[in-house]
């Protein structure tokens, strides 16, 4: 194989190539054969002379974060969530070293977004990072922030999870951007994730709206070489001179809504001419037009050499949609194939309801699968290419190997006790939440019966109890409790609901890589008591294999109590403990 030349910068010096052996992965996999970072990419980036470029192997979500750092953000906020977590970890590492920007995990996506909004109001740039379902939590400030006159650039990096690698749904954040009537950028590759992230801050300030940068798992969690450019300094504080444009009283909001509608006209115009949306005509398109968005462009290009002709191609990386370009393409071809990752956002709009003169192919026409990730094979088949079978597996397919709670995980002990405590009841309900402990739904415990969204278990158990089913049990992790479990608990306190809430306090956000919970364990009990839970029925237990009989007994008592009980089962996540030890060894 021919080797690509090593790129050089203008001075002829070879660009520094290095690899960020992501600490989290290293620590999560827990093996010796994990290299220490050879060098610290971000440190190197910062120490680079102002006119040099650097090349690094970055994950897509890291590339987006680097773009934000280089855009001179003053603050960044996030709640952990796959596949967005690593983006914020890059910012945290940089912040720990350089002292700027201000960065810390927030209690949830809504509080994160609101803090970013405050930064913007005083004229500085801010980043907020979340997974797609996190935007549901932040939807209130997100939608309303479209109306205020954004001052310092505000960019929300939102990572969708088509294929549901680690999520409960496949929602497509482009709809949110559309709903809020703001600008959405969707990178096609790692380099563009970096570039769009930087550009997003300029666009946010130019149009005075927040900008949503949409990532998908396959980009967020793959690595490729990214060339980063010299960074910009932070903006000075320049508080808005027009507080009315930030005060959504109906009288102000009406004017601001009219402004947003006006801005949308400008956005559509901008979208037609922007370099992220490119229309390429082909003399040999045989009547076929292909529209790609985001990373679908790569799958299309991958298949192109086998196609034998060149369709006319419109790539879309920026929304609102470039309508004139879409019409131009439709005027020339007989058939349009839409390749987009996620919901059929574009396809639905092209189809509309009334018949179209052009045939539109996509997921709704059955040419592509309606669920799951887009794949190069699916794109090839939609283009009419034959699939290439791999090696056929003779005999039984390998049995599934689902993820499991770690050996030694404290949740194991709590579940063992809970299953035992519920054994004698003819019926019961256990509503759980989102975290490692959701794995308690699988054998051997099969201890939980629902998982809907962050915090849902608490309200659901209350509802089940209200409906008359007892015992009703809610199981929630400490971080999820702080994220969204406190407010439904207040409802239960007020109603004196007969239910038992078990807070699994492992001092960590285990599933996303054992980040610290925002409040230390010692603060949970006072918090619960402060809400008005009866101290007689607020118990703190040690979640330990040796203590399972004791826990079982305590749970039996609280299940029998005809009122609200809160049981806090405490023991540190073993991954978290290991990480802490490693950090102590490294001396930080």
């Amino acid at each position, binding site marked *: 194989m021919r*080797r690509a030349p090593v790129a050089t910068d203008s001075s002829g010096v070879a660009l520094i190539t290095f690899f960020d052996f992501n600490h989290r992965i290293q620590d999560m996999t827990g093996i010796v054969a994990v290299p220490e970072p050879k060098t610290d990419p971000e440190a190197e980036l910062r120490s680079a002379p102002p006119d040099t470029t650097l090349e690094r192997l970055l994950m897509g979500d890291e590339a987006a974060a680097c773009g934000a750092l280089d855009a001179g953000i003053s603050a960044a906020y996030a709640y952990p969530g796959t596949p967005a977590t690593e983006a914020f970890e890059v910012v945290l590492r940089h912040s720990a070293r350089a002292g700027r920007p201000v960065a810390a995990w927030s209690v949830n996506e809504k509080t994160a977004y609101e803090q970013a909004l405050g930064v913007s109001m005083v004229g500085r740039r801010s980043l907020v990072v979340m997974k797609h379902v996190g935007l549901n939590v932040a939807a209130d400030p997100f939608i309303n922030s479209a109306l205020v006159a954004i001052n310092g650039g505000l960019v929300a990096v939102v990572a969708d999870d088509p294929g549901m690698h680690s999520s409960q749904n496949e929602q497509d954040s482009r709809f949110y951007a559309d709903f809020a009537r703001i600008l959405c950028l969707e990178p096609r590759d790692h380099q563009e994730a970096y570039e769009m992230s930087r550009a997003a801050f300029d666009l946010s300030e130019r149009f005075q709206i927040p900008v949503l940068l949409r990532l998908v798992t396959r980009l967020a969690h*793959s690595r490729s070489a990214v060339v980063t450019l010299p960074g910009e300094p932070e903006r000075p504080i320049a508080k808005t001179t027009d507080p009315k444009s930030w005060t959504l009283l109906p009288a102000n909001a009406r004017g601001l809504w009219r402004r947003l509608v006006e801005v949308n006209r400008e956005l559509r115009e901008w979208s037609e001419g922007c370099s992220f949306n490119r229309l390429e005509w082909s003399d040999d398109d045989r009547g076929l037009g292909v529209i790609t968005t985001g990373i679908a462009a790569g799958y299309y290009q991958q298949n192109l050499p086998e196609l034998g002709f060149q369709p006319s191609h419109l790539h879309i990386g920026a929304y609102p949609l470039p309508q004139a370009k879409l019409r131009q393409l439709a005027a020339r071809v007989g058939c349009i194939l839409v390749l987009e990752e996620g919901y059929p956002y574009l396809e639905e709009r092209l189809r509309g309801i009334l018949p179209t003169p052009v045939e539109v192919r996509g997921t709704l026409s059955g040419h592509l699968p309606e669920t799951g990730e887009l794949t190069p094979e699916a794109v090839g088949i939609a283009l009419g290419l034959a699939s290439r079978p791999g090696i056929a597996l003779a005999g039984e397919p390998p049995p599934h190997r689902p993820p499991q709670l770690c050996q030694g995980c404290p949740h194991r002990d709590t579940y063992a006790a809970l299953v035992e405590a519920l054994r004698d009841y003819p019926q019961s309900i256990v509503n759980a939440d989102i975290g490692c402990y959701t794995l308690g739904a699988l054998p051997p415990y099969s201890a939980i019966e629902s998982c809907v969204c962050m915090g849902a278990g608490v309200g659901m158990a209350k509802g089940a109890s209200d409906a008359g089913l007892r015992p009703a049990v809610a199981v929630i992790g400490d971080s999820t409790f702080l994220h969204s479990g406190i407010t439904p608990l207040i409802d239960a306190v007020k109603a004196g609901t007969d239910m038992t809430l078990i807070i699994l306090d492992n001092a960590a956000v285990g599933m996303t890589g054992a980040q610290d919970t925002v409040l230390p364990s010692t603060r949970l009990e006072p918090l619960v008591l402060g809400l008005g839970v009866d101290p007689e029925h607020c118990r703190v237990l040690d979640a330990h294999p040796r203590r399972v009989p004791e826990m079982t007994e305590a749970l039996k008592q609280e299940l029998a109590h005809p009122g609200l009980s809160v049981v806090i089962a405490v023991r540190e996540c073993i991954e978290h403990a290991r990480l802490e030890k490693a950090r102590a060894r490294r001396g930080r």
Partner: protein
Amino acid sequence: MTEDFVLAGVGGQGVISLGALLAAAGRSDGLEVQLAEVHGMAQRGGAVQAGLRLSDKPIHGALIPEGRARGILSTEPLEGLRYLRYLAPDGVLVTATEPEANIPDYPPIEELHARLNALPHAVLVDAVRLARQAGSRRATNVVLAGAASPYLPIRFETLEAELHRAFAAKGEAVIEINLRALHAGREAAACPAL
């Protein structure tokens, strides 16, 4: 041309780090690189898979198309079988032989080895034993890198250099263990009886 490799194993066996090592080495050799990783819930004893794409031209997309991979590198025999649909008819499967039987319906190991040996081009390496002999069981993934090295478009010296750089902070002893593991893997692949 693009050469694709599926990396497979069980959470905790160092599949992602193996990918990181090979990706960095590929880049050092001047190749374009894409490495797709799956994180999140797959970290706890579940099946883990990564895709490594190496090319002398720009690579479009991180996903490996089915039926085209040059090789599958697996740190565990059952996981080696899981992704066969990605393997090109002339591709090679390089797998560790030691089972990680953390599921109740794990097939009998002899049957598994027989199925692997029946493949057109399979290299079975007792990577765990070789890693132990090299000094640490945890270098199993590096043994596998060595066993796969004849099939990778990466120079062996680059892999060595990459290990030197990667473990520089851990000291000579750890570097030596990993280098021994890499060499042991290469020799075992050349002479499967080892």
